[in-house]
């Protein structure tokens, strides 16, 4: 059975360990220009959404389930932070400055840019083959053994092989697919389900989630999951070599192109 390891071992072994012995090729790039540009626009948008989202939550750090919720109803849970509104009983005795105006403007502006960028990325990925070649796991890779091997390597904080600088491993592929096709759509859906005008045209988008406050609560947890993804993503970049991975995502160049691709 050909696991990813057995396929990649000879490839990885044939790659020179030092980048100086092989000239950097400019013909093959690790990441296409489209992937690089959409990656960094999404990064900027995500950070803007995160900061503005935190500011909006601070004005009412209480979460509910169902259609409605306010300071007179029992919350599902409360965040242990002060609020930017004096009407919210937080027990902290002081009120943070109100930042909701620009936060809401920024949140929706960044959301628009992120959604349009995401659409451009997904549609072009279908045509260029990026989705099929780089993201969907190959048949050989999609086995429990391969899954367990990559997971074990990750848990041991094993430095990835040189071949992995040129291709995503199984766990990477699965987590990117999960973020692109589950978390991002869900965070957009739950966001829109909080819009009174949007749900007036599409009421099922909020009733399916159990109500407007349920949508807000799910939106919060999906955002937390995305922050968790970002944290792991950044840790992995440091483990794999911060500068080489940053260079690959900024200029498209990787240090040592594998023989098969040159």
């Amino acid at each position, binding site marked *: 059975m050909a696991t990813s390891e057995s396929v990649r071992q000879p490839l990885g072994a044939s790659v020179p360990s030092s980048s100086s012995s092989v000239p950097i090729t400019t013909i093959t790039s690790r990441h296409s220009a489209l992937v690089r540009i959409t990656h960094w626009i999404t990064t900027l948008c995500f950070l803007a959404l995160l900061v503005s989202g935190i500011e909006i939550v601070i004005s*009412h750090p209480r979460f509910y389930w169902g259609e409605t919720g306010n*300071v007179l109803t029992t919350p599902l849970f409360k965040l242990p932070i002060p609020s930017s509104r004096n009407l919210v009983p937080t027990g902290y005795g002081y009120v943070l400055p109100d930042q909701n*105006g*620009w936060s809401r*403007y920024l949140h929706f502006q960044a959301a628009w840019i992120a959604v349009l960028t995401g659409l451009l990325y997904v549609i072009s990925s279908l045509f260029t083959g990026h989705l099929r070649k780089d993201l969907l796991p190959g048949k050989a890779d999609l086995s429990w053994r391969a899954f367990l091997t990559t997971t074990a390597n990750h848990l041991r904080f094993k430095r990835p092989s040189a071949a992995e600088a040129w291709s995503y491993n199984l766990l990477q592929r699965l987590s990117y697919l999960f973020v692109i096709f589950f978390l991002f759509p869900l965070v957009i859906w739950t966001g829109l389900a909080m819009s009174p*005008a*949007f749900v*007036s045209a599409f009421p099922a988008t909020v009733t399916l989630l159990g109500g407007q406050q349920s949508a807000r609560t799910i939106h919060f947890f999906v955002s937390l999951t995305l922050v968790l993804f970002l944290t792991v993503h950044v840790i992995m970049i440091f483990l794999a070599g911060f500068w080489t991975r940053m260079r690959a995502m900024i200029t498209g160049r990787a240090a040592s192109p594998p023989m098969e691709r040159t």
Partner: protein
Amino acid sequence: MSNLSRRKLITTGLAATAGVAGLGVAARLAQKYGLVPPDHGGFYGLGETLTYASQRLLTRHSLAREFSRSQISKPPFANEILPLNDAFKRLQAGAFVDWRLSIDGMVDRPATFSLAQLKSYPSRSQITMVQCEEGWSYVAEWIGVPLSHVLNLVGVHPQARYVAYFSIQPDWWESMDMADALHPQTFLTYGMNGGELPVGNGGPLRMRLPRQLGYKSVKFITHLTVTDSMKGFGRGLGSASPEGGYAWYAGI
């Protein structure tokens, strides 16, 4: 220059030209069909315009969700209000008998209405949600006269584009486009949950637009102006909200 890079250059150039031209045409069309909000300028203008334009296209005639009587929030919630001014207190002392709503601007017959007059028109009720931009919400029954009924009485000019509405409280005013002004759920509200509208909820007269967030439902309404442009009002951003940093359109 190789063929490949020349071809790339030409396609990129054509795409950029088409993009710029497309944006220009889109901006023209958006202006023509009233899809540009008064606070479209500045750094956040792009997101604000995209939100308003797309929601206006999707929701021109859609109805806000209505709830069953059993879903009315108990106990009824009332958000904090600023200390009421002397003009309000004087009218309150007289049980709001002298409360007046005046309508002027682009109308055939500028008029002033008492609460009794407004209550004599066909009354409607809706059980809808009030959603605050902060995140909390409640459901209540709102009773009033559709704003469209009163606008028909005064005769709105065909070129009207906005209805600006003012509270008796200082610096508290908003405006809405005609799609919202003529919407069947936009009420001049004087009752709540089967009774009078409490002062804490905006009584004796509150504007209700259930398809927008709570801050568009201004309390203590005394004056409406119908206009074709918001330029002459305040700093020309559409309402007091953008002057305080909040979006004019609050459908999201």
